[in-house]
């Protein structure tokens, strides 16, 4: 495990980007920053990032409606509102935002059926509200109803009622049910079975049957298993081997699978996955919110984890 190399990679990321690549990925900049900061914090290297600059950037991305955009001039969106709140929580600076407006924005996106516009990652809304400590402002019952309507025969969740089960979606839904105290509604054995069938002979995890393994699924699948209390159903050592093989020894960082190009997204989930597997060189990560446990302890947040 080449933690120093990964820290160097993230610290330097973005400084070499040319105009074209920067413009291409700007639409998700806020999430990109969240990935970078979180993995640095997990590696104990958060101090290497430019705290003031980032906080100012986040603050200036809050719109009048309360929502936060991925970058300056972009439209606000639920996804980036969550990332923004997560970033500020890492820095213990959530107060730079107008929190009430954030909550109003999130509330305004809830639809009659309980889901939130912003499409598939609806459940992120709960992440935002929960971090702001205002979970009760949302229509929880309707939202729970909607999420449960996305549960499939195999115990998994899709993005809409009737959609195919997908590990990423499962992660969002189990996280949501955890935050709202509804984990008991999950069929843990059935879902656990589906999740552990994601493990391939290489040790890596995929997101759906017959797909290739991908390091980010080491997170989505593993965290889901942890949340529902079935993480021991995975072969941990084989998974660890796979994740480590996704490192790039020259550049630092993790790729989706061994030999591919690295990026901050997969770097975060590789490191977070290793943390869940018990690597002591990395800080403990919270499986529900994908943030360091000590940060959540600081704000007194303890989402339910089944045992």
């Amino acid at each position, binding site marked *: 495990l080449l933690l120093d190399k990964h820290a160097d990679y993230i610290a330097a990321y973005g400084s070499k980007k040319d105009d074209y690549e920067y413009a291409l990925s700007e639409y998700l900049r806020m999430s990109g920053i969240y990935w970078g900061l979180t993995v640095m914090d997990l590696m104990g290297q958060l101090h290497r990032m430019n705290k003031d600059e980032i906080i100012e950037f986040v603050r200036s991305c809050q719109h009048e409606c309360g929502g936060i955009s991925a970058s300056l001039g972009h439209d606000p969106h639920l996804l980036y509102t969550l990332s923004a709140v997560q970033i500020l929580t890492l820095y213990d600076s959530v107060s730079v935002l107008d929190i009430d407006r954030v909550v109003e924005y999130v509330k305004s996106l809830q639809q009659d059926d309980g889901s939130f516009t912003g499409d598939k990652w609806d459940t992120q809304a709960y992440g935002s509200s929960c971090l702001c400590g205002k979970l009760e402002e949302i229509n929880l019952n309707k939202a729970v109803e909607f999420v449960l309507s996305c549960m499939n025969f195999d115990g998994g969740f899709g993005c809409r009622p009737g959609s195919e089960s997908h590990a990423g979606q499962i992660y969002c839904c189990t996280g949501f049910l955890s935050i709202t105290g509804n984990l008991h509604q999950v069929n843990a054995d059935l879902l656990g079975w589906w999740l552990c069938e994601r493990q391939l002979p290489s040790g890596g995890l995929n997101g*759906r049957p017959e797909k290739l393994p991908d390091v980010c699924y080491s997170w989505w699948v593993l965290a889901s298993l942890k949340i529902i209390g079935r993480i021991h159903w995975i072969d941990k050592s084989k998974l660890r081997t796979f994740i480590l093989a996704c490192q790039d020894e020259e550049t630092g960082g993790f790729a989706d699978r061994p030999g591919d190009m690295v990026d901050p997204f997969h770097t975060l989930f590789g490191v977070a996955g290793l943390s869940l597997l018990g690597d002591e060189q990395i800080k403990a990560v919270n499986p529900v919110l994908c943030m360091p446990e000590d940060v959540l302890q600081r704000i007194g947040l303890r989402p339910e984890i089944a045992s």
Partner: protein
Amino acid sequence: MAESEEEVDVLVQRVVKDINNAFKKNPNIDEIGLIPCPEARYNRSPIVLVENKLGMESWCVKFLLPFVHNKLLLYRQRKQWLDREALIDITCTLLLLNPDFTTAWNVRKELAQCGVLNPERDLYLGKLVLTKFPKSPETWIHRRWVLQQVLRQCRPRAAEQKEPGEVELGGAQGSPPNERLRRVLRDEMKVCAEAAGRYPSNYNAWSHRIWVLQNLAKGNLKILYDELSSMKLWVSTHVSDHSGFHYRQFLMKALVAELSRAADASCGPSQDLHRSHWPNGDGVGPAAAEESRTASVPELFGKELELCTDLIETYPGHETLWCHRRHVFFLWYHWRKEQSQDVGRQPSLLNHTDETLSGSLGASAGRNVQAMDVDLALEESKQTSYTQDSKRLKRGPLQLRPGLPSEHSFVTKILSGCRSPEQGRFAAAYRKWLDSVIVAADTRSGSVKIKANMNKRISKRKTKVETLLP
């Protein structure tokens, strides 16, 4: 090749214009792509239009994208005004290069809402984008927004009266079939199919396809049947495509629900369940009803499992096919369970012209659910003669209907004959699944059974179990 800012400006404006002109010149462009071309040729436009294909030479992209990107953001921040034509051209260029740039789609939403942009143009733009970026989530998301606008336009009265998603395609309650909606639906199916072909197991394309049926063709039996039959060849040639097979599972589930609903809606023993009585039919009379459309639920499942068997035997070692089997068998098993639990009600899918039949079904309906798997074959032999059609469509030789014993013998057969280790693995997993999930679900010990199987699996690997198993 250092370019001054003015030069870049001029170049980019020209390129944006060239793209716009290309669309004006050829409204039938059906594909976009990048042409690998590291250097500009003197004074030649990087936009290349050949037949119906629009290409962009790669050298210009690194200038083009940042320029139009920043221009749009300046507009969004109210630092620079852009008129509607410019907005349309710029967002079009941007989205052809970077379709997940949500803000650009949002600008087009606003233009559509003002009435200056026909939403169907975005269906066309999206279709083009998907030829190069078949997964692009924001493209699919915007597409659904556009379709909701189209739905509202097509059925303004319906949208007020009914709940969203219940607009029907045609023939409902005497109103004339909606030609525009039909066309849109056909196009959507095509767009989804193309995108599915461009990227294996394209989750976004297939889940969009499901959304379209759920919202534009709710409960339309004809379409559900058509989709099921047209997808048969596709899945047979894409046996790893889990999303494609999931689509079939969705169709099966929807068909069963509709057939059961239609059957329940009819009352009395002399009702023939022809399609003219089905509220969501296309108004086609009984004479035109084809055999496939009036197939009974058991036949539907029988055919699907047969397809699954063929593919499993022909293409050993595909997890997708075994997952499909699980899903289909699960649907079948639970449908049968529900049927036999309807003790007090009229049996649904019966042609009551056969008197003895109703008697036998009445008897079986009262039987214990647990006995079902043992007696299944016998019971089903009685059912083969009851379809919704007249007797001339009655099947000849008996088809063994699926049940737990037949599934277990299928697994045994595969295991004894297979040479692929993966096939063996999947077959064994299927058998365990039958035991743990299907059977155990009938009893309270369901979850204990799953856990027990898991324990066996874990201890086999000799891994250290970190926590105590309950």
